[in-house]
């Protein structure tokens, strides 16, 4: 077995582990001070990988069904969507194997359902694809500060960048506005785990073995427990996620 002897204190700076404390902003990039959603340690690396695996299962299943529906007909676009599907499948495989190596049980593939008509037209397929990709980007960024193992951080960041590529490409194919559609400003915006779960839960029939709470149903329930303890942290999350939630509406 490998042992992790990370000096978490030096990695996390002033953040108290597991208490939902907010990272001090003294050295934060001014422009970026509103984009850091990693205000709380959101579980072990295994928890974070299983959270990521759930999202990747959702995405992989989404593209498997969507690409099989043949509503993307342009040859180049088809090729890009085939690549995206392969990427998501590769992420599922990589995360699963990583969890196995860590000795953490990978979450089972969730039951996934999409609203009827999702794959009926190119437009409806593209619309949900864009939401999933941008949610994935924010989700990975939201966990970056909580990952303790450097190699897992490297790998998660590597996947995060690919989700950003997917999001941009789907934006281009959708004919979305360059700024605000294809790009989301000069920096990516993190999304806290609780908000990601709230966004994807309507598509998930079950998330066995994750230990995650059931789907939050009300707006007051959207924050993860760790964040709910601090008013400042809660406000930070609410501020950060407002744009993302509006977009999904």
């Amino acid at each position: 077995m490998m042992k992790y002897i990370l000096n978490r204190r030096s990695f996390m700076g002033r953040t108290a582990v597991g208490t939902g404390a907010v990272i001090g902003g003294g050295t934060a990039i001014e422009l970026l001070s509103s984009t850091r959603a990693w205000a709380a340690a959101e579980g072990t690396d295994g928890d974070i990988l299983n959270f990521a695996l759930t999202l990747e299962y959702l995405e992989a299943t989404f593209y498997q069904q969507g690409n099989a529906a043949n509503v993307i007909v342009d040859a180049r676009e088809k090729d890009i969507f085939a690549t995206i599907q392969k990427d998501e499948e590769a992420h599922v495989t990589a995360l699963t194997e990583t969890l196995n190596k860590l000795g953490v049980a990978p979450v089972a593939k969730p039951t996934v359902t999409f609203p009827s008509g999702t794959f009926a037209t190119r437009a409806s397929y593209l619309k949900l694809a864009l939401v999933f990709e941008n949610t994935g980007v924010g989700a990975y960024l939201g966990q970056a500060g909580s990952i303790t193992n450097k190699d897992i951080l490297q790998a998660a960041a590597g996947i995060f960048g690919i989700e950003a590529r997917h999001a941009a490409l789907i934006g281009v194919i959708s004919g979305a506005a360059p700024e605000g559609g294809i790009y989301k400003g000069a920096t990516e915006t993190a999304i806290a785990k609780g908000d990601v779960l709230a966004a994807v839960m309507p598509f998930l029939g079950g998330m066995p073995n994750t230990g995650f709470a059931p789907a939050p149903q009300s707006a007051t329930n959207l924050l993860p427990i760790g964040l709910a303890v601090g008013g400042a942290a809660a406000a930070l999350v609410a501020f950060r996620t407002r744009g993302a939630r509006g977009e999904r509406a």
Partner: protein
Amino acid sequence: MSRELFDGRAVIEFDNEHDRRSFLKYAALVGVGGALVASGTSALAAASPSPSATPAARGSSQFGAGDVGILNYALTLEYLEAEFYQKGLAANILGDDAKYVTPVAAHEAAHVQAITATLQKLGATPATKPTFKFPDTTFTDKATFLKTAVTFEETGVKAYHGQITLIKDAAILGAAASIAGVESRHAAVLNYLAQMPPVPNPVEQHATMDETLTAIKPFLGA
């Protein structure tokens, strides 16, 4: 000058060689190099900077140690990208594709400003903007411009990912990651416009400072 991570201790220790090999196997699967497993990764050379040489000739040591060094390295890359896009847009060769490139130019300029402001906040001196040079047809031929843009974006993505695990301050790590994601978006779009594969790998690759400086060397110096 060796740059120590986590107070010089290894992030991961293995009970035996088999465990280490197993770890490296999965690490390779997810695109992770083996170098990070060792302790005390030496990212910065000991040579003292020579102010007269170009950034490429001076090597990674010019940026200094620690997070400040990483920020100055990132700043140098952002200077290059910002000037490149500013000149490209001014040349007016992109036609309809200019709408995709205009925000990219704005992002790179914003990155320069943000990193500069961060360095000042840290009490450090931001690196000065190097003199850049671009091949003759860069701003007269659209295809050449797009191809060069792809080179810069892919280099930028790999450069940020090469530093992700070396950054000590959590806030700076978050900021760098949030910029890296934008560079990935740029890379995808520029590849798309240049008719090149927009997602060449299922995970982003990473490069060291020296590898990156070698890649941008042709563009440095008058």
